């Protein structure tokens, strides 16, 4: 299990670096082609846009891993840690519920596009590009579930130092 999680982390990190590098190379190639040779590759622009989406979604999954999502820190400053831990457990559970619901309904959308064999640009099946949305929302949802479990453990056995297993 731990091995699989570590593999997922590695995969996400590498994809971020790879996609960003590819984005930079492709976008600048396109500029050179357009300005110097007055041409440009038709498939590059839609590909770039999809890559930005993938980058954003994978980045968001990593952000959930590290509690780096943008949030408001007003009320929580006033709460004592005794209340804060159970509140955080509930908040994480709520986040998990919302993300997993989005992922679940997203999958039905993907199924339709798969069944109807909808094509995207240059003949790639649309579902192959779209599937990143439910995949990353499942991962994010699972991570918040993990965070809430950790919070529960911490609440009931505050002295126990547990390793991160989300």
């Amino acid at each position, binding site marked *: 299990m731990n091995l699989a999680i570590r593999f997922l982390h590695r995969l996400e990190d590498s994809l971020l670096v790879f996609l960003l590098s590819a984005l930079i190379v492709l976008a600048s190639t396109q500029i050179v082609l357009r300005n110097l040779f007055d041409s440009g590759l038709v498939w590059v622009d839609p590909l770039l846009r999809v890559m930005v989406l993938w980058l954003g979604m*994978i980045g968001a999954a990593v952000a959930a891993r590290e509690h780096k999502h943008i949030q408001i820190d007003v009320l929580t400053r006033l709460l004592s840690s005794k209340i804060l831990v159970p509140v955080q457990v509930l908040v994480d559970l709520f986040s998990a519920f919302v993300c997993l619901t989005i992922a679940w309904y997203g999958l039905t959308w993907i199924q339709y596009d798969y069944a109807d064999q909808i094509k995207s640009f240059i003949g790639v099946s649309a579902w192959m590009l779209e599937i990143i949305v439910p995949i990353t929302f499942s991962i994010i949802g699972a991570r918040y579930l993990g965070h809430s479990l950790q919070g529960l453990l911490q609440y009931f056995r505050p002295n126990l130092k547990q390793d991160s297993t989300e």
Partner: protein
Amino acid sequence: MSLFTPFLLLLALLRTPLFVVIAASAMLGFYNSEIDLSVISIEIYRLADMSVLLAIPLFTFAGYLLGESQASTRLVNITNCLLGWMPGGLAIVAIFACALFTAFTGASGITIIALGALLYPALQQSGYSEKFNLGLLTSSGSLGLLFAPSLPLILYGVVAQQMSLDEPVGIDQLFIAGIFPGLLMLTMLAVYSMLQPGIKRQAESFDWATTIAAIKAAKWEIPLPVIILGGIYGGYFAVSEAAAVTAVYVLIVEVLILKEIGFRQLTVIMRESMVLVGGIMIIIGASLASTNYLIDAEIPTQLFDFIQQHIDNKLTFLILLNLFLLVLGMMLDIFSALVIFVPIILPIAMGYDIHPIHLGIIFLANMQLGYFTPPVGMNLFIASYRFHKPVMTLYKATIPFFLILLIAVLVITYWPGLSLALLS
């Protein structure tokens, strides 16, 4: 919906990730309208239809890279040679350097981290009081928000373009509109700095030799603002192209030519910057869904009708808008504030005959104040961490700067010509 709104608001205040709150509100709305919830994923996937978004990862990455390199030192050196000889010179150096750095790195608090360490001791030496230094550097952390190619300006354009207004909002137009309001803020702060008592004049007057040395040291970075700003303002680049050029240029200079960033560090920077991008993109995605619902349910129209019953003139509306945005800026970071509230406020403001581009400048100018408005302005905490000072000290130190910039914000709000003059 109305029943759940306070519940969602409470969740948001209790540190629920904002994208979750936004997505949940859209889900509730669609659920009540009996629309299949797969619509949320479909709306989020619309991120792939928006070509301007390409600018976000590219500019963010370039900004992170600049922040990690020694570019900040070279920027301060060169500004110091060019402006340092004036009375109050070093403070003016700080103001201009911070503004330029913020515009290029995207107002994420990185300015205080990168430039604060250089400017703080230097300001101290030239006789400014500690209180002034802290106030200046904390409030300068968000200066430059109104200049191209700042990310919040781009984001306002992105959000406004989603709303299919009669009057299109071009990002290049926003870049032009921000020039005078931004300069107004810089000038007012510069004048205030010159009037500080007890400052020593810099010992050295303008010196050709050191200036040329500083220019030589920064010879690779100087063309960057020239190319980018010239390209954008001259109309040679689209925004996303400017972002690609910036990313490639910064990458080549800092990694290949100056070799200040190693390969290992580069992958770390790439990853870190994309985590931030992920946080922003998913909020934009979720807000595409919630905005769609808002418009379907005609909520801005209803709000406008309601507000119009109570406020009958533009002036009162603007005063209330300023107040509202100031509070908003204290509570929310600029990116979330933009994607959540622009879709609601923009149609209402247009009902009061406010130009969408002017509204963008008003919005951002107010938000800029919010960065260092107590109790929760983000830059207050970054500065507290960076300068090892209690947040209370920073609250007090920023008060005069807050008042000065507040005057600037009011001028910007009530004088549309300042923003719109260059456009017509």
